[in-house]
């Protein structure tokens, strides 16, 4: 079926019809199956529910997973706010939540998840050290803030432990490092430092991420690069540091420095494609998307390092018995490599690179993971052309990127205060 889909994507409308027809046939076969009745099979095929962002809840992924594990997987894609709210408040509404390690200062104490037994994770030894020790390669910088290594280790009751343990809070999934995206035609020079975010050359053509806890970290990278202040921990600022940062931002805002503040992936792409901004805090796959629409956009690799984030596949505390077994099967499937290859084509990395490599053709592996020029035109996960021949991925190889993570997405202890001051900044 995958082969069939793949070929249909590249050829036109005619084969689309045959595909739909095919799916219709499949559906009627399934329906016939229920009518003639195989109660045992229906029972065996009890579904599990998983929730997440559009980053990982993609119909192709859950459909392939269901085919491989042999039971249906009901994915529900949500926006960030809805995912956070549902994960925290309704853990009886999902078996698996595909969330993020920066949420875990809230999720671990509230005990909405159950600890995951690494003995039941088949490829646990293949999971890279990025989350286990914090260092992808020996000598890497761990990075400030809620680095996954600070969130992952728990005991069998789900309480944090100081070091490695048999149990983990969540299974490490896809991840990436974010920095700045810019249009070289508009900036007129390469961007090599976060300080450029506040350069008056780009006044009125700059956008910033408007999720207070993450946007503040991007801004802090810039202020620190300007040499105005040295933060103790950008992932956990003190009130004094927050005050300094917000006062600086307020001054800049009053000067008319910012064109806009964006909240979603799509918004950031549109800001760049439509030429509203020259430079903004941006996510790597968003830069790829801008390029795919024919607009030049470069993903900066600032000398100060990038801001990292990491997906965390978690199991609800309410999942028991057979559902729990199924959840484990689904988690194991994620590490197996197929999913890693799928998200790689979107520009994300997977926690089991070795398995991913097995499922990626060499030229794609070289482009996405090794930072080499594309040997030929490369596709997105759905078969549409995405990367032109000869293009090099900005930010270098996987190792280079993750060697120098300056700070990880975090929820700070002073988060309430930060949100309050951020409100003040926006109201100014």
């Amino acid at each position, binding site marked *: 079926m995958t082969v069939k889909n793949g070929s249909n994507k590249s050829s036109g409308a005619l084969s689309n019809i045959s595909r739909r027809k095919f799916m219709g046939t499949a559906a009627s076969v399934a329906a016939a199956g229920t009518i003639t009745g195989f109660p045992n099979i229906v029972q065996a095929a009890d579904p599990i529910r998983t929730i997440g962002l559009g980053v990982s809840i993609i119909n192709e992924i859950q459909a392939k997973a269901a085919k491989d594990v042999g039971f249906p997987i009901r994915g529900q894609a949500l926006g960030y706010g809805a995912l956070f709210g549902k994960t925290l408040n309704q853990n009886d509404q999902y078996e698996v939540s595909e969330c993020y390690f920066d949420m875990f200062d809230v999720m671990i104490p509230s005990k909405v998840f159950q600890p995951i037994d690494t003995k039941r994770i088949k490829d646990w030894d293949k999971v890279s050290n990025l989350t286990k020790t914090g260092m992808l390669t020996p000598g890497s910088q761990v990075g400030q803030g809620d680095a996954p290594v600070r969130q992952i280790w728990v005991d069998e009751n789900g309480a944090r432990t100081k070091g490695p343990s048999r149990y983990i809070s969540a299974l490490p999934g896809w991840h990436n490092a974010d920095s700045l995206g810019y249009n070289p035609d508009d900036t007129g020079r390469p961007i090599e430092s976060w300080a450029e975010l506040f350069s008056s050359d780009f006044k009125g053509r700059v956008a910033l991420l408007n999720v207070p806890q993450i946007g503040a970290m991007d801004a802090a990278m810039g202020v620190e690069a300007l040499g105005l202040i040295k933060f103790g921990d950008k992932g956990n600022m003190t009130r004094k540091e927050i005050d300094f940062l917000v006062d600086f931002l307020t001054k800049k805002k009053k000067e008319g420095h910012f064109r*806009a*503040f964006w909240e979603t992936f799509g918004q950031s792409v549109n800001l760049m494609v439509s030429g509203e901004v020259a430079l903004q805090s941006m996510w790597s796959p968003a830069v790829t998307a801008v390029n795919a629409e024919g607009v030049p956009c470069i993903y900066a690799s600032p000398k100060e390092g990038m801001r990292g984030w990491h997906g965390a596949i978690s199991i609800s505390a309410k999942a028991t018995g057979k559902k729990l077994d199924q959840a484990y099967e689904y988690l194991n499937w994620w590490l197996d490599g197929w999913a890693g290859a799928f998200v790689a084509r979107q520009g994300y990395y997977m926690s089991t690179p070795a398995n991913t490599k097995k499922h990626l053709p060499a030229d794609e592996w070289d482009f996405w993971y090794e930072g080499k020029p594309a040997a030929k035109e490369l596709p997105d996960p759905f078969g549409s052309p995405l990367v032109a021949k000869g293009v090099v991925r900005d930010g270098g190889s996987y190792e280079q990127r993750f060697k120098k993570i300056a700070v990880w997405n975090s929820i700070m202890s002073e988060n309430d205060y930060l949100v309050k001051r951020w*409100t003040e900044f926006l109201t100014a």
Partner: protein
Amino acid sequence: MSKVSELHHTGLIGSQPEPDEAAVQAKIRHTEEGFATVWLITPATIWLVLFLVVPLVSIVIFSFWENTPQGLSPAFSLEFYGEYFYTKGFFDPEADRFLLPSVFIRTLGSTLYFTLVTMLLCLIVGYPIAYFLAMQVQAFKWQLALFLLCMVPFWTSYLIRAVAWLPMLGRRGLINQALLGMGIVDKPVSFLFYSEFGYTMALVQIYVVLSIGPIFFSLAKIDKDIIEAATDMGATPFQIFREIIGPMSLPGVAIGMIFIFVMITGEFATAVVVYGGKTSTAGTVILNYYGIANYPFAAVNALMLMLAMVIGIIVILRIVDIRKEL
């Protein structure tokens, strides 16, 4: 029955007629007739109690709870109310925040200010449309069709419409392309979007329809013969508006303004998309605290927003008591 006595009877102009014995009798009779009130209100009341009053009470209760790392914890804490109102340095003449209201009150204030401006604009823009539909269009089917035509943009999800603002008003948007093409400007103008101007225009564009419906219904009930008669008696259009049309449409205006008032005061999406998040509204503050799971403080903000809305609605109803007008 002559026109003049009809005018008096329905009380269209000026004060109501003196209640005579027959009218009182009719009123008494009237209260005895019709469907039994209890049956009319019971289903909706049950629905309201279960799905509005009970969750609302729980929101009020949350607002006194404490937010601990383990989640919400029952308590009677006024901490978040203090946080809402009080700013450090408020009573200190030396501090730079002396007598400066807290950011939450200022945000609420600016939200209300924006709302008032937009309400006024919606009224100015929308009233003539309602008047046109009610007075100038004769057949009911055309009235309804032309009204529905105004509703159509509403049936496209606002999330989709929000995305469509940028290619319309942005630097490379249609408007700028048109301006450039006609040679009116020589480089793209940026005040159209991510600006107070764009924001206000967008709010009017989105919500004006809400005022048209109610005003239309009020106007549609005016007997056109009365206006005809008044014109025959030599009244100027202004007099007719002041004496007949204006007062008759007041309940509709009040209802329309209530709709727009509550919609814009609680609004957050437009500020994010069209104003580029360059301001905070009472709605975005609630969402921000909701987003970081500080539910008690989100609840306090929500309750204060509701309080402002209640006051606003009471003021509107003071000016026009839509229930007395029944």
